[in-house]
């Protein structure tokens, strides 16, 4: 950790720890997924937490003369009852987990065959570790539990305060006293001596998560999710080594319990590419375990691309934040990947097609390789104000996709028509707007991001406006969360939020409501990154449609596969099915024929996916503005 890069997490330490402990006590970080598993984890968690006390009491019982707990009054009875019940909880929980890992073996615990694994992991290290930890817990708690039944046998009868041990009692009532005494000693040693045996292994095992996870949760990032860390050293941005990562991301490897929840929700892993965020954390940990002395002496300088994650995997990430959001111990594998990208891009190591796009973004200010003068071509015949020339209430930062992409411009025009019909005083920057750079930053081209942002900020300084509106969640995220660090502070609003405002304020009258049902896809950069879930839903329902949720919705939404610059990259050869196509099938599975989006990139991705997956006839992809436009009864103007 000491070799990692600085990151300040020392503010409000007491609050941080109090909150983390409370969350852990409530088992809240687990709550996003796997409800059945969580119940059994909760069994073990409470049982094991109580066992801290049990172990202390047991030691005292052995070393303090006449210290006993059976038939010793209400306090001891209460303690016994809890110890007895929690023992069974832990045993049941642990058996569940061992059964799951070794008998039912759910597929989510496995890695795609093309994922880079540390040799120790490839050799089944995680399973072995699970077996050792599981065996330890079973023996430790099991012996203590059997031990208390033996003590009952010695004491001469069942005790209602030790209900489950009393059930075991008949097994031992026939035992002769000498043997009984020996066996009690043996179970005591198995329960407590085993801890001593396990201690040296403990820091190397995944079991250490019970210590590290609360610390990791307490010291988590508190800046907005959508704001990446600044580059530490502009002369060598990013990192390909553990030592070059911010220290909390080194700590992540120790907090990891190897549950693979992250790759279960990862669109890249799900679609068959060689990326598993889980493998990344596990590989880091195995590397540290295997090279502990070397790492401590000369630093963690080995290239992570050799042991932790393959370059192909680095370029498969969609920066959708699902892995970070789902992680119960507060790990941030995505941030490691973005640091790796910064370093790779700085050394010019990137897919060829990405270089082309970045060049175009640098030269033209857009990713389409188009003249930037054609950016406002979509406004033809719409009579939209130029925000550079006159003051407006609302400055519409249109963004690349909404301006240039052919599947988006019809939608963009509708936004303008709705705003005009609602009497909103708005304007666009007719000349000079450049890509906001959100995804440029996420592919790791920090310098280009800064250059784009500086040019946009300079341009915005010359305009007079109250608020900025955008339809593109990526643009929204950059303007709202990342421009402030470069001196651009604005009030930014997503059009979904604005539409709700206008509907509630009466400026938009939905006089021709629609009928039927529809589902909505939460864009990553609107939902997970910026917490806007309700506004688009409100718009949909106000337009008269019944909303049917897909199984993965709101913060568990499944990325369309375009984020983090993927929209510019070719699909990986190993991709089995595009995330966007899976999502279309998910929508069909809930029985809707309308797939609603609130992001220009989603419009592109899902219109394509509906075609390529052969479902074009069954489902139509629409933007929420299509509904509003239609429910307002606006007659569009042909471009």
């Amino acid at each position: 950790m000491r070799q990692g890069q600085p990151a300040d997490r020392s503010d409000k330490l007491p609050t941080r720890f109090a909150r983390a402990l409370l969350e852990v006590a409530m088992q809240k970080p687990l709550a996003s997924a796997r409800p059945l598993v969580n119940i059994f984890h909760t069994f073990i968690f409470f049982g094991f937490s109580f066992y801290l006390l049990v172990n202390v009491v047991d030691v005292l019982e052995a070393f303090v003369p006449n210290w006993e707990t059976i038939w010793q009054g209400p306090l001891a009875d209460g303690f016994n009852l809890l110890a007895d019940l929690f023992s069974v909880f832990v045993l049941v929980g642990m058996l569940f987990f061992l059964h799951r890992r070794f008998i039912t073996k759910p597929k989510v615990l496995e890695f795609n065959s093309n994922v880079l694994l540390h040799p120790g992991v490839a050799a089944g290290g995680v399973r072995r570790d699970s077996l050792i930890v599981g065996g330890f817990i079973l023996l430790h708690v099991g012996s203590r539990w059997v031990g208390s039944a033996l003590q009952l046998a010695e004491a001469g009868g069942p005790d209602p305060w030790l209900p489950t041990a009393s059930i075991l009692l008949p097994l031992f009532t026939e035992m002769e006293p000498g043997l009984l005494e020996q066996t009690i000693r043996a179970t005591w040693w198995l329960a407590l001596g085993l801890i001593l045996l396990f201690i040296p292994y403990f820091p190397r095992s995944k079991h250490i998560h019970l210590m590290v996870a609360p610390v990791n949760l307490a010291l988590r990032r508190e800046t907005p999710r959508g704001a990446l860390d600044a580059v530490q050293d502009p002369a060598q941005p990013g990192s390909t080594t553990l030592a070059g990562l911010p220290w909390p991301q080194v700590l992540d490897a120790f907090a990891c319990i190897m549950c693979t929840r992250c790759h279960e929700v990862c669109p890249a892993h799900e679609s068959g590419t060689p990326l598993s965020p889980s493998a990344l954390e596990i590989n880091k940990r195995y590397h540290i375990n295997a090279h502990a002395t070397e790492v401590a002496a000369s630093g963690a300088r080995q290239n992570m691309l050799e042991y932790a994650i393959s370059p192909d995997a680095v370029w498969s990430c969609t920066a959708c934040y699902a892995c970070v959001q789902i992680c119960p111990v507060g790990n941030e594998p995505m941030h490691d990947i973005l640091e790796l990208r910064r370093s790779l891009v700085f050394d010019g190591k990137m897919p060829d097609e990405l270089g082309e796009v970045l060049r175009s973004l640098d030269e033209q200010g857009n990713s389409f390789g188009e003249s930037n003068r054609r950016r406002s071509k979509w406004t033809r015949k719409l009579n939209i104000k130029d925000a550079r020339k006159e003051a407006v209430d609302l400055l519409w930062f249109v963004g690349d996709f909404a301006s240039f992409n052919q599947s988006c411009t019809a939608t963009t025009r509708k936004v303008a028509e709705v705003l005009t019909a609602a009497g909103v005083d708005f304007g666009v920057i007719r000349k000079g707007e450049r890509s906001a750079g959100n995804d440029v930053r996420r592919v790791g081209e920090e310098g280009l991001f800064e250059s784009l942002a500086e040019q946009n900020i300079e341009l915005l300084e010359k305009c007079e406006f109250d608020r900025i509106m955008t339809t593109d969640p990526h643009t929204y995220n950059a303007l709202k969360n990342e421009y402030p660090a470069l001196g651009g502070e604005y009030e930014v609003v997503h059009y979904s939020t604005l539409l709700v405002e206008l509907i509630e304020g009466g400026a938009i009258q939905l006089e021709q409501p629609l009928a039927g049902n529809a589902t909505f896809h939460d864009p990553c950069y609107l939902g997970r990154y910026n917490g806007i879930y309700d506004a688009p839903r409100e718009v949909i329902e106000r337009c008269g449609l019944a909303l049917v949720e897909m199984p993965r919705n709101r913060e568990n939404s499944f990325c369309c596969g375009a984020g983090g610059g993927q929209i510019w990259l070719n699909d990986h050869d190993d991709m089995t099915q595009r995330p966007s196509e899976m999502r279309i099938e998910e929508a069909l599975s809930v029985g809707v024929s309308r797939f609603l989006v609130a992001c220009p990139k989603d419009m592109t991705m899902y219109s394509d996916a509906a075609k390529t997956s052969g479902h074009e006839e069954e489902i139509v992809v629409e933007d929420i503005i299509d509904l509003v436009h239609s429910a307002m009864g606006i007659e569009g103007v042909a471009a």
Partner: protein
Amino acid sequence: MKIAVLLKMVPDLVEELEVDSTGKALDTEELKFKLNEFDDHALEEALLLGGEEDEVVALALEGEGNEKLLFTALAKGASRAVQLTGVQPGGSGEQATAFAAALAESSFDLILTGVQSVDDREGQLGPLLAARMGLPCVSVVTGVSVTDGGATVNKEYSGGVMAEFEVTLPAVLGIQSAQQPPRYAPVSKVRQMQQTATIESLTVGGAGGGAESEVTAMAPPEVGASAKMLDDAAALLEVLRGEGVA
């Protein structure tokens, strides 16, 4: 080994081109310039050829945007960057004279330039430069490998026919394409170069360019009549009858 790469900016064809009021040149008022893409390939080939001990020097004539161009070349890995001053930008002949003067002062083994550019479709710069310097020249080169005292050069002919040449060094090569796509220079690295590296300046005399071709008129291509999509055979028949064919 010492390799020189000649770079120049050309109008970006992504923008709409307009002819200026003289009717003989492009209106540069609204024009945006970018590195000639063949020069980018020449630079890439030079960087691929250049090893640890070799020197790759990027040269460009003084002009708007050329400093950034040279810093970008440094960011990509060029060892030095030189800007030639004292030259009036003109046709390929004048440019060749200026580069010849600059290159004469140091002994380069290889001089690479893009095979052509949007304002030099005949690809004259390379051959003219070679003539001025009395060096051998091969154009439309798609691959170079340096041998003892010479180089093996692949040249592409029309119809995909490839030829292999042995060239004695020093030589001038007009590069059609490098063996890898030109690398991307990260903006942070270019910015870093702008802060730390310096571009050398070399004044060359304004000697004439010799024979130059002269542009007498420039005009956008005439737009042909638009195509008409026919719905069925009957419609086709009607058109043919109308033309008196059927």
